[in-house]
C-alpha cells in the first residue's frame, strides 16, 4: 500500500490531534502526495457527512420547557464578591468558624453518602438475578475480563491458603466513575470488593485513612487507598473476615 505509514495517522492528523511538529510534516506530505491528499479529501468528506448525519434529533419544545422548569433557579455556586471584602473582621472570624463547621458537616454527610452508596451497590448486586458478568473462581480469568472496560489495572490476591473463594466480577459505577466489583464467598457470606481510581472519585478527606463503616450502615466495611486506587470491602461477614480479605488485597498490591 502506498504511504502506509502516513495513512495510519491520517485520521489523527485530520482530527488535529497530532503534535505540532508532526502536523507540519503531515501538511507538507499531504500537499505533495497525490495518494494521501486524495485519501485525506475523502476522509474529510466522511467526517462532514457524519457531522451532518449526526445532528439528527431535536428535543420537543414541551420537553425543553419541562426541563427548564425543573432546573430553573436551582443552586447558585458561592461567590467571593464585594460584600465579603467589606465585612468586618469580627464577622469574618464568625464566618470562618461557621464555614469550618459547615465544611465538617458536609464532609461527615458526604462520608456517610459514600458508605451508603457502596452498601447500595453491594445489596443491589446480590439481589440481581445475575450478580456477576464474569463467572469464575480463577483470578487469571476475572482480571483480564476488566481489560478495556475500566481505565486502570489492579491485582487480585492468591486465595489458595485462605477461606475465601472468588465468585466473579462485574463493572460498576460510583459517583459517575467506573470501577471493578468483585464478589467473594466465605462460609456462605458474600463479600463485595470495589476498586476505583482514587483521583476520579470525589471522596471526603476523612475517608483517607482506613476506616470501618459507621453503625447506621448495617454491614462491616473497610476502605483504604493504595497505589492510586481506592478499595472498599463490604459484606455481612464478620469484621474479622472483612479485615482478612482486605489484608490479602493490601499484601498483594504492596
Amino acid at each position: 500500500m502506498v504511504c502506509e505509514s502516513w495513512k495510519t495517522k491520517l485520521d489523527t492528523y485530520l482530527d488535529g490531534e497530532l503534535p505540532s511538529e508532526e502536523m507540519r510534516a503531515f501538511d507538507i506530505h499531504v500537499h505533495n502526495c497525490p495518494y494521501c491528499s486524495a485519501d485525506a479529501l475523502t476522509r474529510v468528506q466522511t467526517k462532514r457527512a457524519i457531522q451532518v448525519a449526526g445532528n439528527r434529533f431535536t428535543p420537543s419544545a414541551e420537553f425543553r420547557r419541562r426541563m427548564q422548569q425543573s432546573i430553573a433557579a436551582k443552586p447558585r455556586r458561592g461567590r467571593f464578591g464585594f460584600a465579603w471584602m467589606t465585612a468586618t473582621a469580627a464577622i469574618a472570624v464568625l464566618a470562618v468558624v461557621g464555614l469550618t463547621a459547615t465544611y465538617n458537616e458536609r464532609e461527615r454527610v458526604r462520608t456517610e453518602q459514600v458508605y451508603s452508596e457502596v452498601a447500595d451497590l453491594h445489596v443491589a448486586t446480590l439481589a440481581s438475578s445475575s450478580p456477576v458478568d464474569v463467572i469464575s473462581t480463577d483470578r487469571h480469568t476475572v482480571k483480564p475480563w476488566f481489560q478495556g472496560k475500566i481505565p486502570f489495572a489492579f491485582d487480585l490476591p492468591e486465595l489458595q491458603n485462605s477461606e475465601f473463594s472468588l465468585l466473579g466480577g462485574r463493572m460498576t459505577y460510583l459517583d459517575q466513575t467506573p470501577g471493578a466489583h468483585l464478589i467473594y464467598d466465605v462460609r456462605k457470606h458474600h463479600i463485595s470488593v470495589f476498586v476505583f481510581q482514587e483521583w476520579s472519585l470525589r471522596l471526603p478527606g476523612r475517608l483517607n485513612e482506613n476506616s470501618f463503616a459507621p453503625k447506621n450502615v448495617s454491614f462491616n466495611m473497610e476502605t483504604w487507598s493504595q497505589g492510586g486506587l481506592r478499595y472498599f470491602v463490604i459484606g455481612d461477614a464478620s469484621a474479622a473476615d472483612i479485615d482478612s480479605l482486605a489484608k490479602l488485597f493490601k499484601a498483594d498490591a504492596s
Partner: protein
Amino acid sequence: MYLTRLDTQPDSFEELAMPLFDRLYNFAHWLTHNREEAEDLVQETYAKALKGFSSFRLGTNFRAWMYRILRNTFLTSRTGLKATMTLSLDSEEDGPELPVEGDTPETILMERSNLQLVQSAIDELPVYFREILLLCDVEEMSYQEIAETLSIPIGTVMSRLSRARKTLRDGLRLQFKKG
C-alpha cells in the same frame, strides 16, 4: 467549557447546563434509539448533575462531566446493558490505528451524499463505536475531552476511534450493496 476563574464562572447550574441541552438530547437519542428513553435519560442526567453540582470541581470540564453522567446513566440502564453486552473490546488497548482498506464508502458518499445511508450506518454501529464517533465528529470533542467523558486513556480513544471509523466504512459498503 472549563471553569477555572471565579469571576468568569456562570452563576447557576441552569446557565451552564441548558446550553448543552440540545446536544445532550441528540446524543441520548443516538444511544437509546428512542424518543421517550432519550427524554428519560436526559432528565435523569440533569437530575444527577444538579444533585452533584455543589461538588463539581472548578478547573474541570463541565461539558465532559455532563456527557460522562449521561453516558454512565445510559450504560447502567436496561437498554444500555443490553447494548453493551454484544461487543468485546479485547485487544483494543493502544493498538495501532488501522489503515483504510479501499475508499469505496467515501466514493459512495461523494457520489450520492446520502444522508440516510450514513445515519443507517451510524445506527448499526455497536454502542462503543457509535458514541466515540459522535463525540469526535458531531460534538467535535478533543481526544482529551473524549478520554474524560468515556473514562479511558487517550491511546484507547485513538484506537477505538480508528476501529469505529473502519466499522462505519464497512457498514457503508454494506448499506450501499443493500441499496
